[in-house]
């Protein structure tokens, strides 16, 4: 059975298109409630802003996946992510045993934990990209971010031909893969 998109899908689309007017609307309508939840649970206003922004980024990442359809209200989805992120944060701050005075039940078919993991995995990839050697960052920048052809990359980088460019990209990517896999956080995100 095909899932019917919820009318709030326009809010998700606003995140995907970086529509600042609608994003302001999201802040106006939902931030006070998220802030109240955070403050009720040992957080400050600053924590609430961090949590709210991070939750919207999780939604953005989730919405980029091909099979995503928003079937609940935006707030229900946001609240589900936000409360889980906050619980995770509290566990890190205070250790494993944390009493959370919120209802984490979220009756929907979104896999909220996997959405959060996806965001964390992407942050880890970006972080490790930053520690690659200059040359590799340049090659990956040209091939992935700038979407240059291997022939163009070969010309820019002074490689003999596009085959060398392909091999170099593969090497750099494998280094990045190795760095990500080596990080202890990666095992938690699998």
């Amino acid at each position, binding site marked *: 059975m095909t899932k019917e998109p919820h009318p709030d899908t326009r809010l998700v689309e606003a*995140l*995907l298109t*970086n529509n*600042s*007017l609608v*994003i*302001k609307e999201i*802040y106006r309508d939902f931030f006070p409630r998220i802030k109240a939840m955070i403050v009720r649970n040992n957080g400050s206003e*600053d924590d609430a*802003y961090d949590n709210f*922004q991070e939750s*919207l*980024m999780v939604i*953005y*990442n989730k919405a*980029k996946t091909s099979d995503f359809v928003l079937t609940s209200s935006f707030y229900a989805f946001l609240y589900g992510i936000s409360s889980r992120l906050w619980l995770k944060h509290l566990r890190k701050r205070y250790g494993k045993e944390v009493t959370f005075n919120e209802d984490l039940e979220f009756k929907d078919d979104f896999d909220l934990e996997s959405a959060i993991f996806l965001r964390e*995995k*992407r942050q880890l*990839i*970006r972080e490790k*990209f930053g520690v690659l050697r*200059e*040359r590799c*960052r*340049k090659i*990956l*920048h*040209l091939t*992935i*971010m*700038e*979407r240059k052809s291997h022939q163009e990359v070969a010309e*820019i980088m002074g490689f003999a031909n596009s085959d060398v460019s*392909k*091999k170099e*990209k*593969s*090497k750099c*990517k*494998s280094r*990045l*893969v190795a760095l*990500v*896999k080596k990080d202890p956080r990666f095992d938690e995100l*699998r």
Partner: protein
Amino acid sequence: MQLKAIEMANDKEKYERLERYLAGAMTAEERSAFEAEIAADKELQTDLELHQEIETTLGDRGEAALEATLRKMRPTASPKVRRFTPWIAAAATIALLITVYFVWTPGTTTELSPIASYLSEAPMDLTVLGDQEATLDAAQQAYNTGDYPAALENLQLFLAISPEHESARIFAARAAIATGEYATALEILDFFNGRSSLNIEEATWLQALSLAGMERWEEVRELLRALQNATTPEIREKAATLARSIPE
């Protein structure tokens, strides 16, 4: 030692195959054999997913742009003009005088965005030694002859490797604005948000111009208000001119 060399060669071969698989460069036969291998090998599955995720993550420019927008909406993190201490103000003034000393007569080869008339006419005159020299030279050559798309391309390449180079960042943002790539300019300038920098006024001004190009007038007004007391006269005057031309 020999075992290590064999492992490395195997890894290299594995990654090359993954790349070929993802690029759709395998024959049907190779593809189905490789898929059978993936199905049987959990580690290979993880590698494949990670390879795909790297392409998606690094190729997604929207994520950084959204992060920048969200940061701007946070009251404490909105771009502000810092109150300069006297020595910083003096240094900024000297830097400005050095910049305006040069007379710039570009041979414009690209169509400029409507907002480009607000940009400083200072030529690009940066020096860097080492690997990045050629990229910066190419950017400079392009910028100073009015080929802004090429300047932007080279400056972005340069910044990918030297993200802390603030002057290059400023010129990259100018080039982006000149070509009408306002969202790109905002991404480039996001670096200055919340930072203590001599270039903060210029960065704020360029953010205002980018937002003006996108007709995000409310945000433009907010930034221009912050520039009312800018220490750089040129920015202060241009900001006032732009403020007067904002549609009601």
